[in-house]
C-alpha cells in the first residue's frame, strides 16, 4: 500500500531539461545513422544484394514491414495465410484476394506464396464462379498476381513459367476457352495492368497464346542467361539454408523448352477456326506467317543441345531424328541416337515439325479455309455447299499430306482428318449421294466413321454461332527471340 510522501518539487524544470536532452539524442542518432546507412547501401550495391537485385522495390510494402510489425512479420503472415484458407471456405473471394495480396506485401520474396496463391486464384477460385465473365476476372486476377510476383522476383524462372502456363493453359484449355479467349480478345485492360502485353516484343496481343509464348520465351531467356534467383553478379558466395531449387529450366527439361513452339502452334491452330466466340477465323498470308513461325519455333527447340541423360557431355539434338543423313552418320554415337529417338518420341517432335511444315504451305491454309466453310455450311444445313467445300478441301489436303507422310500417319491427325472425311460423308448422306470410291482418306474414314469428334475449342462444334460475327484484327507478327 502506498503511503503519503512529501511533494516532489521543481518537476517542470527537470522535465524541460530532459526533453531537450532527448531531442538532442534523437538528432544525434539520426546524424549517426546517415553515414551508416550510406555505407550499408554502398556495401549492398557492391555485393549486389539489395532488394533491387531480386526485384522491384515496393515503397509501401517496405514501409509496412518496417514500421508496422517489424519482427512479427512471420506471425502476421501465418495468421493471414490461415485466414485466407478460412475465407476460401466461406466463399469470401474478394476478402481472400485482399488477404493474399497482403501476404505478399509482407513476404514478397517467398516464391511458393506467389506460385500457390496465383494458381489458387486462377484455377480454384475461378471455377467457383458460374458466369464465364466472372471466371475470366479471377483468371486475370491470378495471372496478374503471378506477374506481380515476377516483378518483385525478376530472377525466378519458375514464376515466369507459371505466368506463361496460366495464360496458355487456363485461358486456352478451359471448358469455356472459346468464351474466355473472346473475353481476352476484347479486354481493354482499363486498369492498366499491361495484361495483354507480350513481354518480349512489348506489343499488345489479342490472343492469350501469343502472350503465353512471350512469357515462355522470357523464362527460357532467363535460364539461358544462366540466371538463377539472386545469384548473378553476386561477387561473394551466397550461402543458402534449405534452399529450394528452381523447378523449371533444369538442363534436361524438354517440356520447358518446347512450350514456346506449342504456344505458337496453338495460336496458329486457333486462328484457323472459331476458337474465340463469334470471331471469324483468319486464313491467307496471316495464317501462313503464323504457321511459319511455329515451324521455326519447333526448329529452335529441335536444334537445342540437350545433355544426354546418362552422359551430360554428349549433346542431343532432337531435330536429328528428321534428318536421317545425320542421324545415321558416324557423327552420332549409339547413345546419342538412342536419346534422340527416345526424346523425339516423347515430345512427338516429328509430328509437330511436319505438321507445321505442312500447314504453313498455301495449300494447307487453303484446305483449312475449305474445311471451315464446309463445317459452317453443315451447321447451317447448306449441305450442297458443305459437300463442295469438303470435296475441294479434302483433295487439296490429300495432295498436301502425301508430301508429309509423318503428319499424315500420326494418330492425332487420323482423328482430325478422319473427322473431316466423316463430315464430308455426312453432307453426302444428307444429299442422298453415295460416298465415292475415290474419296480421299477413305481408309481413315472407315476407322472413325462411328466416332464423331467434336473439337472442344471450336465454336462451330460447341455453341450456336451467333447472328453477328466479327472480323478479327489482323495480328502483328510474333517477336522472334
Amino acid at each position, binding site marked *: 500500500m502506498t503511503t503519503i510522501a512529501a511533494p516532489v518539487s521543481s518537476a517542470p524544470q527537470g522535465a524541460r531539461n530532459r526533453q531537450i536532452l532527448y531531442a538532442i539524442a534523437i538528432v544525434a542518432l539520426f546524424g549517426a545513422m546517415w553515414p551508416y546507412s550510406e555505407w550499408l547501401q554502398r556495401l549492398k550495391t557492391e555485393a549486389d544484394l539489395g532488394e533491387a537485385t531480386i526485384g522491384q522495390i515496393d515503397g509501401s510494402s517496405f514501409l509496412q514491414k518496417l514500421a508496422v510489425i517489424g519482427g512479427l512479420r512471420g506471425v502476421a503472415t501465418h495468421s493471414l495465410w490461415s485466414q485466407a484458407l478460412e475465407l476460401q471456405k466461406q466463399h469470401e473471394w474478394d476478402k481472400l484476394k485482399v488477404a493474399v495480396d497482403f501476404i505478399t506485401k509482407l513476404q514478397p520474396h517467398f516464391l511458393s506464396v506467389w506460385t500457390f496463391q496465383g494458381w489458387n486464384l486462377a484455377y480454384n477460385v475461378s471455377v467457383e464462379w*458460374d458466369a464465364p465473365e466472372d471466371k475470366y*476476372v479471377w483468371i486475370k486476377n491470378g495471372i496478374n498476381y503471378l506477374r506481380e510476383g515476377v516483378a518483385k522476383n525478376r530472377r525466378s524462372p519458375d514464376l515466369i513459367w507459371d505466368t506463361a502456363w496460366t495464360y496458355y493453359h487456363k485461358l486456352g484449355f478451359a471448358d469455356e476457352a472459346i468464351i474466355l479467349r473472346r473475353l481476352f480478345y476484347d479486354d481493354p485492360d482499363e486498369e492498366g495492368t499491361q495484361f495483354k502485353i507480350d513481354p518480349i516484343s512489348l506489343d499488345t496481343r489479342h490472343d492469350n497464346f501469343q502472350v503465353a509464348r512471350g512469357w515462355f520465351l522470357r523464362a527460357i531467356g532467363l535460364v539461358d542467361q544462366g540466371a538463377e534467383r539472386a545469384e548473378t553478379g553476386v561477387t561473394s558466395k551466397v550461402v543458402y539454408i534449405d534452399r529450394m531449387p528452381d523447378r523449371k529450366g533444369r538442363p534436361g527439361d524438354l517440356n520447358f523448352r518446347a512450350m514456346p513452339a506449342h504456344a505458337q502452334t496453338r495460336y496458329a491452330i486457333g486462328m484457323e477456326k472459331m476458337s474465340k466466340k463469334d470471331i471469324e477465323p483468319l486464313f491467307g498470308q496471316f495464317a501462313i506467317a503464323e504457321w511459319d513461325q511455329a515451324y521455326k519455333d519447333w526448329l529452335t527447340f529441335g536444334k537445342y543441345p540437350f545433355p544426354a541423360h546418362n552422359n551430360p557431355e554428349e549433346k542431343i539434338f532432337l531435330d536429328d531424328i528428321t534428318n536421317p543423313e545425320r542421324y545415321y552418320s558416324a557423327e552420332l554415337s549409339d547413345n546419342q541416337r538412342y536419346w534422340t529417338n527416345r526424346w523425339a518420341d516423347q515430345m512427338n517432335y516429328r509430328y509437330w515439325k511436319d505438321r507445321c511444315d505442312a500447314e504453313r504451305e498455301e495449300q494447307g491454309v487453303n484446305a483449312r479455309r475449305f474445311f471451315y466453310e464446309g463445317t459452317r455450311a453443315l451447321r447451317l444445313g447448306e449441305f450442297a455447299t458443305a459437300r463442295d467445300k469438303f470435296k475441294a478441301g479434302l483433295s487439296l489436303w490429300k495432295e498436301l499430306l502425301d508430301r508429309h507422310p509423318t503428319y499424315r500417319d500420326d494418330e492425332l491427325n487420323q482423328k482430325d482428318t478422319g473427322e473431316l472425311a466423316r463430315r464430308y460423308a455426312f453432307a453426302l448422306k444428307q444429299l442422298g449421294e453415295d460416298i465415292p470410291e475415290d474419296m480421299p482418306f477413305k481408309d481413315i474414314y472407315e476407322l472413325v466413321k462411328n466416332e464423331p469428334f467434336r473439337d472442344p475449342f471450336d465454336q462451330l462444334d460447341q455453341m450456336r454461332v451467333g447472328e453477328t460475327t466479327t472480323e478479327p484484327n489482323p495480328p502483328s507478327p510474333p517477336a522472334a527471340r
Partner: protein
Amino acid sequence: MPFLGIWAQAATGEPSTLLKWLVLLGDPQVTTSSWIGGPLTWAKFLGLLCLLSWILVQLYYALRGPDRLDVARRGPGPAAYGLLVLLGLSVATALVSVLEQNRRLVLPPIGPLNLAGYSVGPFTVTDLLLAALGLVGLVVLEIALWSSLARGSRGGRALLVLLLHGAIAAGVAVYYFVQLAYRQSRGLSPVLESADLLAVLLNGIRYGATYAGLICLVFYAGSFLGEARHVRWRRLAAIAWHTIVESFRRTRAPWAVLALFVVVLAFTNWFLGRGRVAELARIFVSTLSVITTFLLMIMIVLMAPISIPNDIRQQTIYTVVSKPVRRLELIWGRLIGYMAVVTFLLAILGGVSLLYLNGVVGGRVRTTREAALAALNQGRVEEARRLDEAATQLSNRLSARLPLYGSLLFYDSRDRPRMRGVDVGSEERRRSHVEGATPARAIWRYDIVPDPANPSRPVDRRLPVNQLLRPGSLEALENRIVELQLEAQNIERRLTLPDTKPAEARRLNERRQAINAELNSLTPQFEERRRQEQDLIAKARQAEAAGNRQEAARLREQAAAMHSPDIPVEMTFSVFRTTKGVLGEAVNASLVVRNVNRPEVPESRKLFPVQEYYTRRESFPARLLVGSAGRIHMIVQCQSPTQFLGMAENDLYVLANQGPFWTNYLRGLSGIWLQALVMTAVGLFAGTFLSWPVALLLTLAAYLGGQVAFGFLDLFARGQVAGGGPFESLLRLLGHENLSTDLAPTASVVAAQTLDRFFTPIMSSLVYVVPNLNALDVSDTVASGFAVTGRTLLEQGLLGLGYALPFTVAAFYILKNREVAA
C-alpha cells in the same frame, strides 16, 4: 414457459411453476427464450462471480486483513496449513488422474460403498481424491469464515454467511424435488435410487452456489446502489473534464490517432483499389472500420489503464480523495471523460471516412457508369450490361437496405417438405440446394410459421403490408377495404355460432356497424380514385393515337403515381452444376409470388438467369399484397435440368426500405464506440489494483483476447480444441507432433498434462470474463449495405453495458478497499 432439459421427453405431468422458476434461477445452463432469459443468465453469472470474489476476499481477510485470525498473526495457523494441504491434494489429484488416463498407473476401483441402505460407487481413486479435496476446501473455508466472523462482529456479514449456507441447502433440496418430479413424469416410483444420490448432492450444490451467488449479487447491488445514490453530475463532469484535458495535453494520444489515421488512409487505396467493382464498397468500408477500431482501441488500451496508477504514483490522487469526491465518481468520471474523447475522435474519423468513401467508391460508381455508357456506344452490349450491373451493385452496397426475411422451407424433388435442400458436398454448409427442372423448390414463407428450432412455437414473419404500400395509393385503399370486408365476414360467422354470449354479440355488432360506416366512406373514395386513374389511361391512349407521345407518357406517369410502387425483392443464389450444360448459358431460376390469404389473386411469375455471387433485384406488383394480411409465399425453383441452385434463408428478402448510407455508417460507428466503452472499463478496472505496466499488459491481453482470440477461447471452453491444454500444446509444438496423436506418457508429458489440469479450467472460464468485442461490431452489416436497426443498436448497447458496468463496479469496490488515503 418453454423449457429446456430434463422435461423435454416427459411423458406425463408437468412440474409446478414454482419448481420451474427455481430451476431457471438455479441452473446456470438453463435459460428461457422469453426476454427474461438473457438478463437472468447474465445475473446468474455475475452472481457466481460475486460469490467467488466474496469468498476470496473472506479468505484474504482471514489471513491478512485487519481482523485476521490470531493464529495468522502469530504465524502459520490451521487455515494456512489447510491451504497447504489443499494445494498438495490438488496436485496429487491431478497427477493421479493424468497417470490413470495414460495407463501409467492402474488402480482398482473402490467400492461400492454401503451408506444407509444405499450402495454408492464404485469410485476411482481420482474420484475419492476429488471428494477429499472438496471436503478439505470446505473445512478451510468454513474455518476462515467463522473465525473471521467471530473476530470482527459485523452483523451484515454474519447474516450473509448464514444466508449463503441456507442457499446451498436450498439448492440440494430443490434438486431433490427436481429429481422426484422427473421420476414422477416418467412414471417411476417416488423413491430415489442409489445412482441418483450423488447427482442430487453434486447438482444440488451447483444450484445452491447459483442461489448463493444471486444473494451475493443482491447484497453487492444494494451497497452499490447506496453509493450510486450519492453520485453528483457536477463532480462527475469535473473529473471527466480533467480527464479530457489530461489526455489531450499530457499524453497527446488523440492527436497521434488523428495523424496516424490520415497516414494510413493515404496508403489504403494502394492495395485495396484493385478488387472487383461490385465488392469495392464492402472491402473499403470494412477496412476503414478496422483501421478506426484499431487506432481507437490502441489509444484506449494505452491511456485507460495507466490513468489511475499514474495518479497514485504522482500522488495527485491524495489531493482528490481528500476532497468530498466519491470513489465511484473517480471511476465513472474518467469513463465519461475518455468516452468524450472517443466520441470526438469517432466523429472526426467517421466524417473523414465518409468523405473518403464518397470520393473513392462514389467516384468508382461514376467511372463505371461512364465506362458502361462508352461500351454501349461502341456496341459492346454485353460488357455494358456487366459494367452497369457492377455499378448498381456497388451503389446498393453504399446504402442502408432494410431487409424483411421470410422463413425458408424446402420441398424435395418428390414434393416432400424438408428443412434443408440437397447437400452437394460443399465446404460452405450454409446453403443447401434445389434440383433443377423437378418439383423441388424453396419457399420463403411470410406468414405465421412454426419456429424451426422449436416447432411448437410459432414465429410471426408476416409482411408489414401497411409499411410496404404507399399511404393513399389505390392498393392501400383497396387493401383496407378488403381487410374490413374479411373482418366483417368473420364477425358474421361468429354471430351465427350458437355459443356466442350476448355481451360478445353486442360488441361484435357494434364493431360490424363501425366497419360498415368505414366501408361506406372508403368504397366511394376508392371508386373515385380508380375512375380518375382509368380516365388518365384513356386520355393517354387518346394522346398516343393523336401521336402526342410526350403527353401520353406524362399521363401514364400520373396514372402510375396513383399506385404503390412495385415491391422490390433481392436475392443471391449459388449454382452447382452436375454437367457443363450449354457453354456460356446461365442456369435459370423462377420466382413465383403468391398471396396465400387470397389464392384467387393471380400470382406474379418471373424467370431470370442466375449470376453467382451477384445480388439480383426483382419485384412483384404491389396489388399482390392487397388483402394478404402480410401472408405471402415466394417460391423459387431451378429451371435448368441437371443443375442445382443453392440458397439459404437470408439469400432472399423483401426490401422494405433503402435509406442513406451516411446515417447508417454513423450508426455502425456505435459498435466501435461500445467496444471503446468496454475496453475503457476494463482498463480502469485493471488500473485500480495493478501497477501501470501490468495493468497495461492486462488490458492489452483482454483486448487481444476479445478481438482476435475470442473464437478460440469459445472453442476451448467447449472442449473442442484438439491437442490438449496450453502445456501439452507447447510440447506438441516443440516436438513437431500433430494435434491428434496420443503422446507417449513420458515424465514431461505427464508433468505438462498435470499442469494443464490447473490451467485448462482457468483458461476455459476466461470466455466468461474476456469481453466478446466481435459481438459488438456491426461494421459487416454496414459494409454489406444493410441498415443497422434501432433494435440492433439497443441490443448492442445492452451488451456493451453488460460488460462495462460490472467492470466499473468491480473497480469501485477495489478502489474503495485500497488504502490510497486514510
